[in-house]
């Protein structure tokens, strides 16, 4: 009698897990969100390239180098504030007992990966800007140095995410590391005010919201910001789906192992 009940329970469990897998597979399939974000990203990227390279004027002093403005500040914004901001917020939501869910840990990890990519791009585009305007690929300027430090910090965060442990231990470790890494973000932000740096302070849009560049340049730059935000959103969705598929994969492996065990003589 007990063995019949055990078999029924385990069959129910298997059925629940199959339903879970089916639900996840439905979620990770084609969706309107992914299409809208993807098409939006491509459109805004094409528009930014077209306006940035062919429509907006050259700068009197900087020449064509000024076109880096349409790439460098948008990727920096997406890395520092959007991606790492999301990682910090999601980590806080994991640590807060009332909102604790593995969803937040996955979101934090996905956003940090994209943030690292964007921050590396920020350093590369900044380096190209530095070569043409300051004459050097790299200088030990406070903002540049602190940004490089931030990149290493988030690479370390991604390394910590790969460590072994139970799901809860891993999520705790990830969230705490993210909070410590986030302390460096305001330091990077205010570095141009605290130190005499080569890197200029916010100069395109004044604190009074006045544009200091022609409207076409301002609009192109704004489009650049929209483009990096949409790409971040699209990558977040794709990266999160991959995390869900990993759950499916481990569930399938588990079911396979259980079936093999059951079929053993």
């Amino acid at each position: 009698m007990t063995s019949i009940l055990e078999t029924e329970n385990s069959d129910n469990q298997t059925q629940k897990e199959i339903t879970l897998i089916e639900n996840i597979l439905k979620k990770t399939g084609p969706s309107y969100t992914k299409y809208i974000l993807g098409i939006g990203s491509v459109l805004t990227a094409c528009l930014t390239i077209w306006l940035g390279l062919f429509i907006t004027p050259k700068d009197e002093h900087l020449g064509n180098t000024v076109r880096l403005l349409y790439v460098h500040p948008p990727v920096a914004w997406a890395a520092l504030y959007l991606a790492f901001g999301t990682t910090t917020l999601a980590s806080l939501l994991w640590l807060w007992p009332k909102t604790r869910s593995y969803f937040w840990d996955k979101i934090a990890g996905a956003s940090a990966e994209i943030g690292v990519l964007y921050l590396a791009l920020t350093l590369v585009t900044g380096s190209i800007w530095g070569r043409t305007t300051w004459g050097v690929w790299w200088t030990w300027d406070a903002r540049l140095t602190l940004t490089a430090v931030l990149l290493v910090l988030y690479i370390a965060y991604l390394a910590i995410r790969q460590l072994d442990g139970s799901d809860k231990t891993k999520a705790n470790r990830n969230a705490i590391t993210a909070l410590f890494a986030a302390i460096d973000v305001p330091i990077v932000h205010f570095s141009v005010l605290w130190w005499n740096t080569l890197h200029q302070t916010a100069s395109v849009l004044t604190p009074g919201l006045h544009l200091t560049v022609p409207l076409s340049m301002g609009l192109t730059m704004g489009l650049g910001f929209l483009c990096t935000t949409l790409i971040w959103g699209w990558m977040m969705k794709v990266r999160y789906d991959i995390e869900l598929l990993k759950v499916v994969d481990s569930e399938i492996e588990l079911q396979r192992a259980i079936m093999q065990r059951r079929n053993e003589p």
Partner: protein
Amino acid sequence: MFRDGLTIVKKDLKIEIRSKVLMMQVLPLTGAILIIFGFALGPDLNPLRQNAAGLIWVSVLLCSMLAVQRSIAVERDCGGEALRLSGYDLAGVFMGKAMAVAIEIFFIGIATMSITAIVFNTGLHGVSNILTEILVMAVASLALSSAGIIFGAMFISSSTSETLLPLIYLPLTSPVLLAATKASLPTFTGVGSIKLIWVVILFLLAVAYFSVGSISFEPLLEDY
């Protein structure tokens, strides 16, 4: 919580005094690092004098990592289990361990400063600068130990702690290194006086690391 913290401070310092690792291994290492800097930048004393503040803090940073690893190694045998099962408030345990390591780093720092003043022939300039420098050393020690203890505890049962700890600890504490170096410059160069802004930044960093550490130590160890 504070009483638990005090117990841990006493325990860790007693272990350190009995084992003499700080005295016999970490302090000589500080001397060795300074001598290596001397080989690399010397024999001209001018670059050594100009960079003395930075060299001191790099030495302190490297040695502080050893102090952190040492403090965690004491608990490692049980993979952090002993700390969790001790019945002590875990925030208090964090405070105790961070304070004990901060005291050790403070002494390493004072010793490094004294050795530098002699071997790099910089001297120490201005009584007020020296007093502020001691304050800077104390605040920076707390910032370094707070960050170190958290990540030391995080990797307590990990086989890759030797590589992961420096990877996260060095970039994380680089703002402390930067602010402390800037604050220490006048004491060793004799030019100007210590700017309050660096002391304030150091203080804010110490408060941030200590607060985040106190909050996060419990969730970090709860599942081991």
